[in-house]
């Protein structure tokens, strides 16, 4: 039965080719624009660290130690803490895992001094690799003993290892970081969060995550004269912003990330955090009521507008446009079907049930939808290519991925059936006798 309907549909499509092309093209444009916007949206809306970031939370509090007349209301949550506070939170071990980190940009060199590499990395207090789930290729992460003794140890990625030593397995080699020589204890695969999650308050405009080429214990790095890229928020007497400075004792520059499994753990940690912050306020260190809050990664990214509004607006626009195309095609199909009431009447008179007629027309629109989907494929590719060429911060996300095919296929069939329901129902509704009379 199905292939009979299919042959009927093909036959009818051939009868009026321009009309069919118009229908297919309209659907294809609608589907392609929606697919383009959706691909970008999907690329930017998943977990920044799959399997890990859903359990990660960042601690925020108003940790300012002096009155700030420019921002007395603490306009938005602030994740930057002094090293001392970050250490206290990490050392409390109240979460499953916890680490304080800061972004650094510096030069890593090999001991001969003949090769060096500009590298982004994280200065960390605590088990950074474990907390963020960074996969180790060789070696091991640093131990608590190494951290507390400020041992000069570093974990680098294979990219830096290749560049400095010409091999992936650089464990045991020495790397010059600032004024000191650091021993490589581990090598990781190239690692970057899919989207920007660190230091969002001072990192406006970045969408895709930064490759982190090295991980180093914070204190050892400071001892070697390598500080965070920006020194965050410093006290009133210190400069407004300064770069790559290792004298950051007066500054709030570290972010504390904790890994928590269950809702109960989150609640418990929230209480612990509020308790810690309030104690600092009561002791007179924090100038304002701290309003300590724990943010999940996703909520934190939303709050800081990591994904530009344009991405959402374009998706809404594309969705609206697809809807318009659907109504349009439904109307044209209704006109097309109703013009053929005569054929339907004869089929009905010969014994076809309403259901048969309905199915026959649905097969036809489903076929058109599929054709629209096939045409939408190159159009989507074109759309993504155009976006990729644009000077927008999310251009990198505009890439054709295999699962786009699946979504596209499902979407086009759904579209074909959806636009067919109303016309098909309309055409099978009328009684055969009346239709024959008209015909």
């Amino acid at each position, binding site marked *: 039965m199905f292939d009979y309907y299919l042959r009927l549909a093909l036959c009818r499509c051939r009868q009026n080719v321009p009309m069919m092309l*118009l229908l297919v093209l*309209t659907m294809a*444009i609608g589907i392609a*624009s929606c697919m383009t916007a959706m691909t970008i949206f999907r690329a930017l809306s998943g977990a920044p660290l799959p399997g890990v970031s859903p359990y990660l939370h960042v601690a925020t509090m108003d940790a300012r130690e002096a009155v700030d*007349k420019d921002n007395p209301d603490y306009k938005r949550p602030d994740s930057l803490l002094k090293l001392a506070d970050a250490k206290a939170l990490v050392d409390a071990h109240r979460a499953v895992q916890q680490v304080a980190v800061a972004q650094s*940009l*510096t*030069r890593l060199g090999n001991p001969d001094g003949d090769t060096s590499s*500009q590298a982004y990395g994280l200065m960390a207090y605590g088990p950074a690799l474990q907390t963020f789930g960074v996969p180790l290729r060789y070696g091991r992460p640093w131990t608590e003993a190494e951290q507390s003794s400020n041992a000069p140890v570093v974990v680098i990625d294979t990219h830096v290892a290749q560049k400095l030593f010409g091999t992936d397995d650089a464990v045991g080699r020495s790397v010059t970081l600032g004024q000191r020589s650091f021993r490589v204890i581990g090598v990781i695969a190239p690692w970057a969060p899919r989207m920007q999650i660190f230091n969002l308050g001072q990192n406006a405009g970045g969408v895709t995550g930064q490759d982190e080429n090295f991980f180093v214990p914070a204190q050892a790095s400071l001892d070697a004269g390598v500080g965070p890229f920006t020194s965050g928020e410093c006290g009133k007497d210190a*400069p*407004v*912003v*300064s*770069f*790559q*400075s290792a*004298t950051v004792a007066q500054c709030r520059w570290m972010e504390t990330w904790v890994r928590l499994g269950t809702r109960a753990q989150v609640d418990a940690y929230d209480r612990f955090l509020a308790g810690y912050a309030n104690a600092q306020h009561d002791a007179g260190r924090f100038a304002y009521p701290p309003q300590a809050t724990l943010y999940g990664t996703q909520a934190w990214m939303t709050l800081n507008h990591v994904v530009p*509004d*344009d991405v*959402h*607006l*374009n998706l*809404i*626009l594309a969705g*609206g*446009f697809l*809807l*318009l*195309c659907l*109504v*349009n095609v*439904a*109307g*044209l199909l*209704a*006109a097309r079907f*109703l*013009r053929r009431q005569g054929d339907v009447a004869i089929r009905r008179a010969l014994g076809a049930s309403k259901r048969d007629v309905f199915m026959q027309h649905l097969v036809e629109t489903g076929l058109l939808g599929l054709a629209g989907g096939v045409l939408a494929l190159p159009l989507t590719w074109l759309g993504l290519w155009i976006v990729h060429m*644009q*000077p*927008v911060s999310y251009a990198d996300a505009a890439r054709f991925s295999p699962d786009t095919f699946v979504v596209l296929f499902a979407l086009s069939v759904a579209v074909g059936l959806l636009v067919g329901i*109303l016309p098909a129902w*309309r055409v099978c509704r009328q009684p055969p006798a009346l239709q024959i009379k008209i015909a």
Partner: protein
Amino acid sequence: MRHIVKPLLRHRMMPLLVVLQVALACAIACNALFLLQQKLVPIVSPDGVGHPDRLLVAWNIAPRGQPWPTSRLGQVASELRAIPGVTSTSVAGSWPMETVAQMNGSVMGEGEHAARADAAVYIGNHMVDTLGLKLVAGRDFSAAEEGVAYTGIGIDASGPAIITRALANRLFPGGDALGHVVRIGDQADAGRRTVVGVVEHLMRNKFGQDDRENIDYSMLFPGIPSNWPMPVFAVRARSAAEVDGVLGAVKAAIKRDLGPDMIQGIDPAYETYGRLRDRALAQSRAAVWLLSGVSLVVLVVTLVGIMGLTGYWVQQRTRQIGVRRALGARRRNILREVQLENLLVVGSGVLLGLASAYAVNLWLMRHYELARLPWQYLPLGAALMLLLGQLAVLSPALRASRVPPVVATRSV
């Protein structure tokens, strides 16, 4: 009128589909055109800068550790000034079209009910000459004013200011702004700036959601900001031919004087102001193309849709039209009737569309940083859709009017 409305009510599906289509298209087009207009503002507004191809800008010149001392910046600037072919140099905290460093704030006149405005503040020396701004009232800063030594960035300090004409009109609607005082912020100890000059235009370096006027709200303060980690150097060349030579000398001088203490891994950027502007506006330009493309396709799709549906609707009634013609209706009557019918159907779609355009805008405003849809867009959108409807119905209506009366006698 009744003979037009009645059939519409009897056969509801076709008109309803047209209404729905028009409503959707209207809602999308209104919002898309509004977004388009906003993205267009920085592209079409004058930025006030003269000879953009002769102005060289150097930025991303950040020191490792402490910010550069102003004396050192001044020293570099005077070396740049000595380069042959250079007519003017400036050291500033932020620069038009350079969005890495921005200073924006709420400024207001003196007094209880003073007008306020959200303005960009540019602090730097010799900016009027270097930017090539056109003074329309008052004077440029004096040498003594340019020599001011700030303790901080200078935004809280009092002193003279040059403002744009748009800002002057906003803050001092009474007329002459010269000699009046602008307060920089709400605090009691906020800086108080006396207006000494008014320039024709100067665009702010924060884009997005601006209408024509407030993208031109800018102020200039004299002197070199101190304690500012990201200074901008700007150099104006005498002629376009000398730009390349000057650029090489500027690069060399900055590298020699400041290079050893610069941050590692981020290199200084040098560009002519014209190129800088192109890059800064590239994103807006891309959005303009996207939105105009979408708007156009929406209109075309709607046009085709209305045409197809009306064509069928007319064909369905060929016999009735024939009867009417046989009974004495003239071609013109039939044409007018079909057009009027379309006007009714599209009109109700437009009403629905305008309501949903407004609702969509309200929803977007709640969730995104978006301005309110100006009411002017509603009649504009309505007119556009009605026009589109008439355009779409023209061919089916003409076809209807050509139905010969003899059709009435056939196959009844």
